[in-house]
C-alpha cells in the first residue's frame, strides 16, 4: 500500500501563471441558454484563461518559475532538481524539463525530468520530488506543474466549458527536521479510457483519419487527437475513491479532518468537489475554490487555488494543509503538508510578464 512519509523537506514558495485571454462560459453559444446556465452552476466555472496559439504549458511554467526564483532570491546554480509535471509537453520527445533547465538558466549538474500525470499530478509530483530530496542529496528543487487543456474541441460541451490553462512553480528546500509530508497514492488503470486523447501517441500514430470530426452525442463533436472525457465514469470514480483514500491517510497520520487549516482539492468541478466535501464533512470555509475564474487547470489547480485564494494566509501563517488530486489515469492521491510562511507572489499574467521582463527562448 502506497502510504508513506517524506521527512526533511519544506516548501519555500508557490507561484502560478495564466494567459491573459479570458473565455466566459456565458458566451458559449454552442449549447442552449438554459443548458449553459445549468452547466455554469453545476461545474462552477464562469470564466477561464486560454492561451493564444503557440503558447505552451512550459511557457506558463517558465514565468511562474522565473518569477518565484527572483522572489526567493535563489541562486540559480544552487537548484539541483527540476521536475515538470504535465500532460501537454512541448514535444513527444525530448522531455520538456530538459528544455526548461536551459531556459531557466539552471546548471548542467541539475537533474531534470518529466512526470506525465494530470489531475493527480501535484500530489504525485510532490511525492517524487520530496522522496528524492529527503536524504539531503538535493538542497533546492523546483516542481513545475500545469497543462494547456484549451486545445480540446470547442464543439465538445463535456470538455470545452470546463478546462482552463495554467502553469505553476513550487520551490522545495532540504531542511533537517522539517515536518513530514504524508502521502496516500493510488491507481486504477482499468479506467484509462475515461479521460483519453485516443490518437497521436505511439500506440496509434496520427494519420489523416485522426483529425476527422465525429459526433459522439448532442453537443459533442471532436476528432481523435482531442481529449475525450467520460463525465459520469470520472464522477463516479471520484465519489467512490477520494473519500476512502483520505480517510486511510488520516488513519495513518492519526489526524482528524477538522484539524487541518485548509483542505485544498484538485479543482475538478464544483458539484464533484462539493459532494466529496459533504461526504467528508469538511467545513466550507476551509475548502477553497478557484474554479469560478480559472476552471479546471489539471495539475496546476491545487497551487493555483493556494495562490489565488490563500495568498495572505500562506505568507503570514504556519498552516497545516490536506491536499487531494484525482482523475486521468485513473490516478488519485492525497497528502498532508505544512506551509510555514512561504513566498507566494501574486498570480502572473503570461503576456504582461513577457512584456515587462522578457522571457528566454532557446
Amino acid at each position, binding site marked *: 500500500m502506497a502510504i508513506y512519509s517524506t521527512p526533511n523537506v519544506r516548501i519555500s514558495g508557490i507561484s502560478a501563471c495564466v494567459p491573459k485571454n479570458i473565455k466566459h462560459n456565458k458566451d458559449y453559444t454552442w449549447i442552449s441558454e438554459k443548458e449553459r446556465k*445549468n452547466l455554469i452552476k453545476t461545474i462552477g466555472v464562469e470564466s477561464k484563461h486560454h492561451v493564444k496559439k503557440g503558447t505552451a504549458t512550459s511557457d506558463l511554467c517558465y514565468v511562474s518559475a522565473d518569477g518565484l526564483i527572483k522572489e526567493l532570491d535563489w541562486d540559480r546554480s544552487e537548484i539541483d532538481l527540476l521536475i515538470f509535471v504535465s500532460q501537454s509537453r512541448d514535444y513527444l520527445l525530448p522531455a520538456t524539463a530538459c528544455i526548461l533547465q536551459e531556459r531557466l538558466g539552471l546548471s548542467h549538474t541539475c537533474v531534470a525530468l518529466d512526470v506525465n500525470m494530470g489531475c493527480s499530478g501535484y500530489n504525485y509530483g510532490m511525492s517524487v520530488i520530496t522522496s528524492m530530496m529527503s536524504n539531503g542529496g538535493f538542497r533546492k528543487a523546483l516542481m513545475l506543474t500545469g497543462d494547456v487543456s484549451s486545445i480540446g474541441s470547442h464543439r465538445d*460541451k463535456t470538455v470545452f466549458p470546463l478546462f482552463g490553462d495554467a502553469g505553476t512553480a513550487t520551490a522545495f528546500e532540504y531542511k533537517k527536521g522539517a515536518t513530514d509530508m504524508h502521502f496516500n497514492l493510488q491507481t486504477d488503470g482499468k479506467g484509462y479510457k475515461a479521460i483519453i486523447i485516443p490518437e497521436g501517441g505511439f500506440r496509434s500514430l496520427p494519420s489523416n483519419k485522426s483529425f476527422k470530426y465525429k459526433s459522439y452525442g448532442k453537443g459533442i463533436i471532436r476528432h481523435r487527437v482531442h481529449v475525450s472525457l467520460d*463525465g*459520469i*465514469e470520472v464522477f463516479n470514480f471520484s465519489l467512490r475513491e477520494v473519500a476512502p483514500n483520505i480517510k486511510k491517510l488520516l488513519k495513518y497520520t492519526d489526524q482528524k479532518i477538522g484539524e487541518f487549516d485548509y483542505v485544498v482539492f484538485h479543482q475538478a468541478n464544483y*458539484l464533484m468537489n462539493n459532494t466529496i466535501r459533504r461526504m467528508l464533512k469538511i467545513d466550507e470555509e476551509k475548502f477553497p475554490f478557484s474554479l469560478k475564474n480559472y476552471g479546471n487547470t489539471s495539475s496546476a489547480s491545487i497551487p493555483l487555488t493556494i495562490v489565488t485564494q490563500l495568498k495572505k494566509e500562506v505568507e503570514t501563517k504556519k498552516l497545516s494543509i490536506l491536499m487531494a488530486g484525482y482523475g486521468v489515469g485513473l490516478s488519485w492521491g492525497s497528502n498532508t503538508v505544512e506551509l510555514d510562511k512561504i513566498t507566494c507572489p501574486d498570480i502572473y499574467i503570461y503576456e504582461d510578464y513577457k512584456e515587462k521582463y522578457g522571457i528566454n527562448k532557446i
Partner: protein
Amino acid sequence: MKIEEFIALLEEEFDDDIKPGTLKPETGLDEEMELTSVNALILISMIKVEYDVTLNAKELNKCNTVNDLFKTVQKKL
C-alpha cells in the same frame, strides 16, 4: 424507502426546473425532466449522498421513467 420520499428529494434537488407536486412515477427522464449530461451528474451525486448508491452511465441509460430510477436505486440499497 418510499417512492414519495424519492420524488420529494428529486423535486428539491431540481427545484429550478421542476414545480413541487408535478413529478410522477411515470414522468419520463429524458423529455420531461430533461436529464442532460449535467443533470445526470447532479442526480448521481444526490443518490450517492442520500443513499450511498452509485449509478453508472449504463444503469442510468436503462431508466426511462422516475419509477425505473427508483427501482434501480432500491435494488442497490
